[in-house]
């Protein structure tokens, strides 16, 4: 299910401590990165890999906002709705971007390229309204710039 690199990364986390459970956070991140979701199949797979119960893996997976139960698009566009960004017009930008991509937050574009998310403060408030494309900070955003980003 996972690439050699991904398995190596999980193995490295596992080697850090005696407790196999410690590697779970890394396993979830890596799996989300490659499979774009941690759904039932992925949960069973990770549970087998680390020798943990699937229920436990599921419980931890569902705790985190960046681990998703259903597949995301190729890219995740996260718009910050935190207080500082709100004070800099984040609501207007979010509305405009939603219109542009013709989706609502939480949805994925018809071509499967972008999932739009509204997220809490991402720690980039001086570039408000802040946004991220996957792991990249791209703020401050105007709807126009987002248009360019999504065309890349």
């Amino acid at each position: 299910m996972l690439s050699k690199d991904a398995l190596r990364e999980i193995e490295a986390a596992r080697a850090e401590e005696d407790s196999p459970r410690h590697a779970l956070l890394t396993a979830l991140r890596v799996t989300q990165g490659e499979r774009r979701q941690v759904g039932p199949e992925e949960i069973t797979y990770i549970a087998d890999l680390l020798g943990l119960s699937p229920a436990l893996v599921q419980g931890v997976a569902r705790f985190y906002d960046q681990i998703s139960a259903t597949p995301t698009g190729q890219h995740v566009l996260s718009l910050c709705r935190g207080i500082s960004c709100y004070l800099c017009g984040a609501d207007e930008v979010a509305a405009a971007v939603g219109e542009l991509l013709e989706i609502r937050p939480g949805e994925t574009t018809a071509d499967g390229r972008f999932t739009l998310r509204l997220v809490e403060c991402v720690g980039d408030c001086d570039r408000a309204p802040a946004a991220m494309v996957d792991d990249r900070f791209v703020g401050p955003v105007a709807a126009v710039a987002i248009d360019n980003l999504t065309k890349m």
Partner: protein
Amino acid sequence: MAQYLTRNALDPAQRELQTALRAGAYLGFKQALSLPPQEVVAEIDASGLRGRGGAGFPTGRKWSFIHAKEGQTVYLLCNADESEPGTFKDHYLIERDPHLVLEGVAIGAYAIGAHRAYIYMRGEYASLAETLAAALREAMAADIIGPNCMNSGYDLRITIQLGAGAYICGEETGLIQSLEGRRAYPRVRPPFPAVHGFLQEPTVVNNVETLACAARIMAEGAEAFKDHGTGRSAGTKLISVSGAVERPGVYEVELGYPLMEFLQGEAGGIRGGRGLKAIIPGGTSVPVLTAEEAAPLTIDYESMQSAGTMLGSGGMIVFGDDTSMPQALLRIAEFYAHESCGECTPCREGTGWMAWVLRRLLAGEGRPGDLGLLLRVGDNIEGRTICGLGDASVQPVRSFIRKFRPEFEALLPEPVQAVAWQSHGHGPRTGRFGPPAEEATRSEAVDGPPTAAL
């Protein structure tokens, strides 16, 4: 603007080891390694350094709590989760001067007798983790960090761990739980992490900026640190300022620096030449200040405390006079409702309720007792939860309502009698003005926020 911690941060070349070394990187670590660990703790204690993560606990004292028994593994955990809204100073430090951060981690670990350290970073900082990892690889290749650090006989292994999106992982026991591969449900204290921390071993959790300060202190001495700041607030502080200002960003200031001078100077004044309405000085978890209250204050622990608020993380959020305070409060309340981990009932339910009541007020569906209800829900959270998030969620609600009450009152429906009188003979008024009083009381008790609000 002070230049103690951020002296080298403006030069992008600082990310490279050779440049950083020329600017004095790792001299503090070298100095620390030449001393017994207790003396490093004593030096930090003498500097008066207080934790920069929010609570302001004296760092030297925290380190002195570690008494490892034979066979125990001591851990230093560097808290780089930085998720408090309005806070982005650790982002700045890690991005601009990663070697200073690593040096601080190494010194902290040495001082408490740890040979293992983790840097726990929020998942959204994955790109910064790469910067830090590159710096760590360089420091390891140069034998500065690793087995036998700088030929001292001291071994240290530092691991960078990314989170996956949850504010509560910044709370120290939430961080520990997350690192162990559990849901980040904070732990009841005591026992404190110093006794039973990560994997039940003795553990210290310190903020990025705290450890960076420790690196400078070991290089230049406690006295040089105390030359900055005020008596009880020694040193400098990174302030991340955002919101309605002309020049949002991270600035290093002497503790004791006048708040208004900072706002007009470093931060460039209020955006668009507008007036100042309010300031949250230390992240959303601390009480808001009105412009009037803020005017005489200085940026330090005591001054903020005297005004009933806190310096917190140094995440300063500025509100211009065109801001709707109820709208702004809703955004903050929604944050806490979303980020409550759900472990304790008062916080899990209360944060959802506060957001829900604010939402209905703003939708024009407020009920006569709603402001009292909001304050009461807050009272029922405060002091009744496992971690500080519950208490934190109450601070904005209480302070916004108390200090900007007319704006909230304007959202309330007309008094019930007036509604009843007006609607006499026309049937009950519906929708916007809310249900009649009896119904309001009953439904307050039974009708909770929909699951979506949680």
